[in-house]
């Protein structure tokens, strides 16, 4: 992350681990996903439907922009005062009988949760849909310790039973249609038989029957949280099906995993987010159920209540002033639904738990731009800006995408060697290793090209000389007046598209011949103005500035 040096001892950003990586670069992954016609049809239908619903309910509120402004400002306040707010939250949550745990990374969070579950003596837990637990890969970690975590959200259950991956923040099984879901239920739910139809009503009923006994008998639940209220220590979960209420109410022990950025300062602040979130997310005026709990309430709900405050790279995001607003995200997924790239590529192409435009900025920031193939994610955008327009907390996603592209380019081209060439701290410790890690990479073809272009373009004379080569480009273009092949690295561009043949004459030369016409016209109109003519290639130029 780019940071301004302020003369204070610097704590290096510590990046996150877990399900945050694209293991395959985005263009390759997208190409593969785009061959899945069924998935693309499902995603197109879903994104367009939610988009329409969202637009209708947002239009209904005369003060939507004021709510967005407040939502954004509140999150800026939270980020600026995060250490104090976290400590206050801990104090208030603890005072009400809850226990607060701190996790530096995914591994630490998983270890804490596993130990808490093991201490209760159970090997079965129920889960509420949560991005944070997906991010840390909790389910797999628990399985390795002999603990079965059952997803209770319908979509998450479909994904879990289908041994599949989520493809959308809000509707994780959006890539499956009703017939595919019926097949999964038939093969994975022993109590179902051929009489099960593929009607959504029947499928939901099957899920209800399948999970009812689990809800009544399981003594430990794991959840995420949408908001944590600092001044009261209150946690909040928004949901639709009632599976959340079941998990938050019926078990004896409740373990909640919450990213450190989820705090809001006061209970009153929820009045902003509880308006912004449902309308942006499901396109409803309000989601069916919202639960709030503050520590332990005697005689009502779990009496053993924990919260795990998770960093896992969030502090690294915070360290970059140009990118930290990505932490304002309230996980509504509105940006996914309007993104032309997401619509075509689908959620799996992004690799990470966080897909779509927000994932394209959040994942590489949390893991560091050089981790796995995450540097390809900021390019997964046409920079059309639709994501910024719909963001309920006004995260300027396009601006951060450009910022991260810049960071990637600087990283690639000499300022920092990429991960694969950089010896890790463990592999080569000591001074020599440190020095080597700082070595710039050998300049690439791209660097040489950019350097060359910079030399040419910074001088009017050299630029004019270069333009003399235009006829060569025309010769390269075929009869269709398009260049479809370029050599070397520039060929990356022509792999996917044609370049129109260059014009007969450069604009600079054309202007030199025609500038006088403008002056003539101005004179005819009675004005007086001097329009300087540019130098032609055969004129002498004054010496270039460095």
């Amino acid at each position, binding site marked *: 992350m780019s940071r301004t040096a302020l003369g204070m001892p610097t704590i290096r950003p510590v990046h996150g681990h877990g399900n945050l990586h694209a293991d395959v670069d985005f263009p390759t992954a997208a190409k593969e996903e785009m061959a899945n016609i069924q998935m693309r049809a499902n995603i197109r239908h879903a994104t367009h439907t939610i988009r329409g619903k969202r637009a209708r309910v947002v239009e209904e509120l005369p003060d939507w922009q004021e709510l967005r402004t407040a939502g954004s400002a509140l999150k800026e306040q939270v980020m600026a005062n995060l250490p104090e707010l976290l400590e206050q939250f801990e104090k208030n949550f603890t005072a009400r009988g809850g226990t607060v*745990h701190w996790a530096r990374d995914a591994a630490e969070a998983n270890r804490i949760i596993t130990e808490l579950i093991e201490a209760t003596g159970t090997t079965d837990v129920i889960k509420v849909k949560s991005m944070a637990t997906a991010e840390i890969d909790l389910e797999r970690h628990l399985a390795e310790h002999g603990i079965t975590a059952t997803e209770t959200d319908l979509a998450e259950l479909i994904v879990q039973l289908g041994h599949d991956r989520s493809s959308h923040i809000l*509707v994780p099984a959006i890539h499956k249609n009703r017939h595919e879901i019926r097949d999964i239920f038939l093969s994975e739910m022993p109590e179902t038989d051929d009489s099960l139809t593929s009607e959504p009503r029947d499928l939901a009923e099957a899920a209800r029957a399948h999970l009812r006994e689990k809800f009544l008998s399981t003594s430990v639940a794991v959840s995420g949280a949408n908001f944590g209220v600092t001044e009261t220590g209150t946690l909040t979960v928004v949901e639709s099906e009632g599976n959340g209420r079941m998990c938050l109410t019926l078990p004896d022990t409740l373990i909640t995993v919450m990213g450190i950025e989820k705090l809001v300062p006061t209970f009153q602040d929820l009045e902003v987010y509880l308006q912004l979130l449902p309308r942006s997310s499901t396109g409803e005026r*309000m989601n069916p159920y919202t639960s709030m709990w503050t520590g332990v309430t005697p005689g*009502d709900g779990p009496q053993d209540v924990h919260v795990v405050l998770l960093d896992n790279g969030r*502090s*690294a995001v915070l360290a970059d002033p140009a990118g930290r607003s990505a932490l304002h995200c309230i996980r509504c997924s509105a940006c996914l639904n309007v993104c032309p790239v997401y619509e075509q590529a689908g959620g799996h192409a992004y690799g990470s738990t966080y897909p779509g435009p927000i994932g394209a900025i959040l994942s590489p920031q949390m893991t560091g731009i050089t981790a796995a193939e995450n540097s390809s994610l900021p390019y997964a955008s046409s920079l059309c800006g639709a994501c910024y327009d719909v963001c309920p907390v006004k995260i300027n996603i396009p601006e951060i995408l450009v910022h991260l592209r810049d960071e990637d380019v600087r990283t690639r081209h000499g300022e920092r060697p990429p991960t694969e060439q950089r010896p890790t701290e463990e592999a080569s410790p000591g001074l020599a290793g440190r020095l080597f890690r700082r070595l710039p990479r050998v300049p690439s073809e791209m660097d040489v090209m950019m350097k060359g272009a910079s030399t040419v373009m910074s001088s009017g004379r050299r630029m004019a000389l270069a333009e003399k080569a235009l006829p060569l480009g025309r010769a390269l273009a075929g009869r269709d007046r398009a260049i479809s092949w370029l050599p070397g690295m520039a060929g990356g561009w022509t792999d996917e598209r044609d370049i129109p043949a260059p014009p007969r004459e450069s604009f600079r030369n054309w202007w030199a011949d025609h500038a006088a016409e403008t002056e003539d016209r101005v004179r005819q109109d009675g004005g007086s103005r001097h329009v300087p003519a540019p130098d032609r290639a055969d004129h002498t130029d004054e010496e270039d500035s460095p």
Partner: protein
Amino acid sequence: MSTEAKSEVLARIRGALQDSPDAPQVRRAYRRTSGRPAAEIREMFEDRLVDYKATVHHENAATLPERIAELLGPSARYVIPEGLDRSWLPEDTIGRRVLVESRMEDAGTVLSVRDLNEVDAVVTSSTVSCAETGTIFLSGRPEEGRRAISLVPDHHICIVPAASIVELVPEALARVEPTAPITMISGPSATSDIELERVEGVHGPRRLDVILLT
């Protein structure tokens, strides 16, 4: 518990905030108080509830017991929280019986979740309701009971006193005790997880009857 983890996370965050960012003042320029007449607000609330596929009834103190009897049907075991006004309820019959639930063992019955799973319905009151979003707030007061009783039974009859309806979310939130166990209910449980087709009734009560009490 690791205090080391806490100090390190806090140190990382402080390190990340070395530029001491200036946060803007929060301007609450959005609507915080309603200017609409009560009748209009009530109408809006009803419109939203119907949109969510809840059923809405208008009753007064005299007609309320009869309506509850009708909604329960001739044969039903239903649960109420101990603080609910008994004058709202119909007389028990051979087929219809009320169970009074207490959350403290020394004050009466505490139903197990399996008991609750066997009852047909629950009747509760409510704290406040927000018309603009069609949301009813329960906050564990004696006339609302603990959270489990309004969750496990499949039919929730919820009484909303007309005076407790406000128009806006900020007005509603200001009327609940923040540290109480709060449940916000906007229609019956629902899912749109399969091809985005909305299905009412998954795990929470599949039937929600709202009685507006004037």
